């Protein structure tokens, strides 16, 4: 059993990339799970090498939601269809293959039967914003209330691998100094 401790986030991978040596160094006392998204086609192991010039500590779990974490939300197609009030068939089948999962999610919400969902998630006509004003509210509500991580993992390999890694993970403790 694990409990989630402090969540470090600054919205975006730039912060994680900048601070990764810190997490790696501190991993000898506390396990860290680092989740980021992969914009380029580079493979995860190449990315970790690029980010971290020193060897990765075993207690630092480095996981990548291919493209964007929204892909993991789209992966629970049944739950998302219910939450967004759209036909289940409209949810993209292979979320990890989507070039821009966030845009797909916004487009999906734009055909919602519920006006409130459309107003919250979809940017207004003519807006420079890429997401609606209630996007974050709605998606965190979805994750809290509806999202089924196991169903989603059946449909998103990177999520499945993250769950597997977490369930088999045993921290390595350095001998006392």
């Amino acid at each position, binding site marked *: 059993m694990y409990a989630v401790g402090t969540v470090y986030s600054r*919205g975006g991978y730039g912060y994680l990339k900048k601070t990764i040596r810190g997490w790696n160094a501190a991993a000898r006392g506390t396990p860290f799970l680092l989740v980021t998204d992969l914009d380029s086609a580079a493979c995860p192991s190449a990315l970790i090498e690029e980010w971290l010039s020193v060897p990765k500590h075993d207690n630092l779990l480095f996981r990548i939601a291919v493209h964007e974490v929204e892909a993991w939300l789209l992966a629970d197609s049944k739950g998302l269809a219910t939450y967004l009030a759209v036909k289940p068939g409209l949810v993209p089948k292979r979320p990890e293959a989507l070039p821009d999962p966030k845009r797909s999610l916004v487009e999906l919400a734009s055909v919602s039967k519920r006006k409130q969902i459309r*107003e*919250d998630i979809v*940017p*207004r006509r*003519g*807006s*420079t*914003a*890429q*997401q*609606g*004003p*209630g*996007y*974050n*509210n709605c998606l965190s509500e979805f994750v809290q209330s509806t999202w089924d991580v196991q169903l989603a993992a059946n449909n998103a390999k990177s999520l499945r691998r993250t769950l597997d890694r977490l369930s088999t993970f045993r921290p390595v403790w350095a001998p006392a100094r």
Partner: protein
Amino acid sequence: MRISKIVLKNWRNFRSAEVELGDRVFLVGPNASGKSNFLDAIRFLRDVAKAGGGLQPALAGRGGLSKVRCLAALKDPDVEIDVTLTDGDGGEDWRYAIGITQGVRGYRQPYIRYEKVWRGEKQILNRPDSQDQKDDERKTQTHLEQISANTNFRAIAKFFESIRYLHLVPQLLKHADYYQGSGTVEDPYGRNFLEMIAKTPEKTRRSRLKKIEAALRHAVPQLRALTDTKDEAGVPHLEAIYEHWRPNAGRQREDQFSDGTIRLIGLFWSLLDGDAPLLLEEPELSLHSSIVAKLPGLFHKLGRRKKRQLIVSTHSWDLLSEKGIGGEEVVMLQPDKNGAKAVLASSISEVGDLLDADLSIADAVLPRTAPEQISLFDLAV
């Protein structure tokens, strides 16, 4: 109804500014760029229209016309405010325009140069009229402030009157005795905040405090059972139980609340209070960055419920990094020796390109609002 456009001429540090406003507006700019002055133009209309208000008290409360007039203006030009009001339900727009000047001799009493009202395309008020020409005294009052004269545009007088402004100062609330009131009826800084809560009908009051407590539970988890109460002298207070290491948690009054708690309570209360435009001055003050980051979403949620317009001044990186904020919602104030300019962030092509590339307002806009010479700031002392 909301203010969809505002034009200011010679108002405080705006010599000439014109900007369109949406349902949610974020005012950004360096210190002393005119964020409060911009809000004050809207508050001024409220002060003219409200019961017991009027043009003369609204100006006197601001130190007279010469304090209000733009210093960058040449000579003594008219101070002008022109607002367009849009009815969300598809009714015709209203437009109210006022020009103010003052006498050349003696007491130099301010009077209206003009006062005009339109409903749609049709002009329904055009002053000075023939009666004004005969009697100069008439021009010291607006028709907006007179019930007998504003029959045809009562809706906009009511609208201006209903506008709310909040800039809660926790110290004023906590230590009300130390501060002498200025005698103004309006109290945006919180001296009468508790009285305002106490005057709210009981059912509404209880339901609001309950909602606020529910929201606070996630921000200040030690606090519960938020209620209002009165002391032996009949003075209203807020009370809550503050859980701590002692088994019997004690009840605390507002003078023991933290600044952040008080500001959150004030913020939620004003968001839940009424459906008229709400002007908020730097809502990020005293709050943790993780709460500040959630404010734009909260404004949207509560504003939409009542179709309420929110105009918010801010310096906060955390607030403006919310990706749901569009450049068309952000009014940038740019100081200049010829008076400040107000522009929509989306109208600047470089900013627009950055926002299109999914940068946040914080990344694309805030750097432009830093003073040009800021790199020298700490070298000066």
